[in-house]
C-alpha cells in the first residue's frame, strides 16, 4: 500500500470503529448518581473526535491525489517471508491454540508444545533440537513459577499427579 491508500484505509476503519463505539455508548443506561456530563458524555465526545479525525484523514487523502505514488506490496526483504502478514496471523493462531489447550493439557505441556511448534513455524529445523526445547522449556517455566515465584500454573489433566 502507498501512503494515500494507507490514509484511506485508516480513515475508513477509524470512522467504522468510532461509529460502532458511539452506538455502543448510546446503549449504556445512565445512573441516578450520574452528574451533568453523564456516564456516556466523555466516551461519546471521544467517539466524535475520532470520527472527525478519520474523516479529515479521508478527505486529505482524496485531496492529495498523488498519481506517482507506488505501492510497496511486492517488496520482500531478502531472507524474509514472502507473505509476512499470513505468517503473523499463523503465529497468532498458534498462540490462540496454546491458550485453548492450557485448561486441557496444562501449562507445562502446552508451553513446551508451543515453543517447539512456534520455533518450527519460524523456520527452525531439526527434530531433536525442537524436542529438547519442548522438553526443557515446560518444566523450566513450571519450576520457576511454582517454586521460585510461588505462582501456580494450571496443570490441566495432570492435576491429580502434580496438584492444582
Amino acid at each position, binding site marked *: *500500500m502507498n*501512503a494515500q491508500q*494507507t490514509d484511506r*484505509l*485508516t480513515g475508513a476503519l477509524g470512522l467504522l*470503529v468510532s461509529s460502532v463505539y458511539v452506538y*455502543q*455508548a448510546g446503549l*449504556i*443506561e*445512565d*445512573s441516578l*448518581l*450520574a*452528574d451533568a*456530563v453523564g*456516564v*456516556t458524555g*466523555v*466516551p461519546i465526545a*471521544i467517539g466524535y473526535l*475520532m470520527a472527525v*479525525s*478519520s474523516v*479529515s*484523514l479521508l478527505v486529505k487523502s482524496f485531496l492529495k491525489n498523488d498519481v506517482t505514488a507506488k505501492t510497496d506490496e511486492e517488496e520482500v*526483504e531478502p*531472507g*524474509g*517471508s514472502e*507473505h*509476512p*502478514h499470513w*505468517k*503473523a496471523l499463523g*503465529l*497468532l493462531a498458534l*498462540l*490462540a491454540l496454546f*491458550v485453548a489447550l*492450557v*485448561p486441557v493439557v496444562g*501449562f507445562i505441556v502446552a*508451553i513446551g508444545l*508451543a*515453543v517447539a511448534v*512456534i*520455533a518450527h*513455524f*519460524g*523456520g*527452525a529445523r531439526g527434530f531433536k533440537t525442537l524436542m529438547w*526445547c519442548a522438553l526443557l*522449556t515446560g518444566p523450566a*517455566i513450571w519450576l520457576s*513459577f511454582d517454586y521460585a*515465584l510461588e*505462582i*501456580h*500454573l494450571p496443570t490441566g489433566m495432570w492435576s491429580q499427579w502434580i496438584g492444582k
Partner: protein
Amino acid sequence: MDSFLLALSNLTSGWVILSAFAGVLWGIFGGALPGISPSIAMALLLPFTVGMEATNALVLLASVYVGAEYGGSIPAILIRTPGTNSASATVIDGNEMAKRGQAGEALGISLMSGLYGGLFGLVILVLCTESLAKVALAFTPAAYFSLGILGLSVIAGLSGGSLLRGLIAACMGLMISFIGSDPVSGVQRFTFGSEDLLDGVKPILVMVGLFAVTEMLVQIGEPPWARGSGGSTRLKLPDWAMSKRLFKPQAIGAVIGSIEGVTPGAGGTVAAFMAYTEAKRWSKHPEEFGKGSPEGVAAPESANNVVTATALVPLLSLGIPGSNSAAILLGGFLIHGLQPGPMLFQKAPEVVYGLYGGLFIANIAMLLIGLVILTPCMWLVNRPKPYLIAFILALVMAGVFAIHQSLFDCGLVLVIGLLGYVMRLLNLPVLPMVLGMVLGYMVESNYRRSLLISGGDHSIFVTDTVSSILLGLAVVLSAYTLWKEISDRRKSAS
C-alpha cells in the same frame, strides 16, 4: 536531607542491588538483540514484578532501560546492526572502528560514555523532579484535568509527523481507558457482560501486547538477524589521554540528552543523532567523523544514556510518560497501586528515592557487567531467531498469566498484539495510544469532579489559575507542533 538518606539506604539494600544488577543484565541481553527495544525488554519483565516489593520492581524495570542502552551498542559496533533505535548513531563510527580492529576500544568508549551520561542524567533527574512536583502539589481537580490535556497535547510531537494519525491513536487509547466502571457512578461501560472486563483493561496488558507480542508478529516474517564473529573481541577502556579527548563530546551528549530527555516524544534516538552532529561541529577533527572517530561513538552514547534518567522527569513529577520506556515504567507504578505525579512524593517518597538510589547502582552495575558480558552477549545474538521468538513468547504468556492467574488476560494480550500489528500496517503511532489510555481516567474523572464542584460551570477551567496556565501551555505546545509539522512539510516539498 531525609530524602538523601532514604536514597542512600537503598544503596546498601541487598534486594535493590540484586534488582539493579538483574535488570541491567537482562537489559544488556535484550538491547543486544536487534528488534528487542528497551521498552520490549522492560515489557517482558513487567508481569514478573507483580509479586515484588514496589521499589525493587521499579529499580528492576529502570535498570533494564539503563542496560538496554549499552546492550544496543554491542551489535551496532560489532555487526553494524543497532540493537536499539538509539544506537543507530553509534553504528556510523563504532562499526568503522571495529573494521579497523578497534572494536574493543569502541565498546569501551561506549561503556564509559554511557556511564558518565547515565550519572549526569541522574543528577538532572534528582534536581528537577521534586521541585516540579512541588509546584504541581497545588493542583485542584480542574488543574489535574488541564494537566491531562497538556499531557495529551504532546501527542502531536509523538505522532511521527501526522497529527491526525496521532489523534486517532490517542482516541483509541482513551476508548480503551473507558472500559469498566465509570469513575463517578460505578456504572459498567463497554464490558459486554464479561466479568473479566469489570475492572477495565489493565495498562500492563496493553503494553505487553502492543510492545512485545506485536514485535514478535512482525519479526516472524522478517529476515534473520545478522550474525557476529562469535565473541573473540576484548573490551578496552579508554586511557587518560583518550578520556581527555572524549570529555567534550560526552559533555555535548549529556547536555543534549538532558534537554531531549525531559521533552516528551523526543527520546534517545533524536538525542543521539543531535549529539553526533553537534560533536562533529565542535570537534578539532571533524574530518574523522564517519571514518571511525572515537568522539563519534562517545557523543551519541553519552546522549542516549542521559535520556534513561531524564525521561523520568515528566513521568515522576507530572505523571506524563514521554517515551515508550517511561510508559512501561508507568505500568510498573500502576500495578503496585502507585500513581506517578506530584502526590507520589507525599505518598511514597521511599519508592522515588529508592528509584534514584537504584538508578545509581544500575549505572555502576552497567560498568561491572559490561566488562564481562561481551562473549555471552555475542553468543545470544547468534542464536537462531525462531528459537528466540518462541522463548520470548513463552515468557510473555507465562508472565501475563501470572498477573491475575487468568487465561482471559493471555487471550486479551493476543488481541491487543493483533491491534498493534494492524496499527503498524496503517502507520498509526503506538505512543499516543498508550498516552490516551493512561491519561484517560485522569482527564475524565477530574473533568467531571470539577463540574460537580462548579455546578456544571465550565469557566472553572479558566478561572482556576493553575488550570488556565496549563491549558494555555497545551494550546501553545499544540500550535508550535502544528506549525513545525507544516513548515517541515513545506521544506520537504520544496
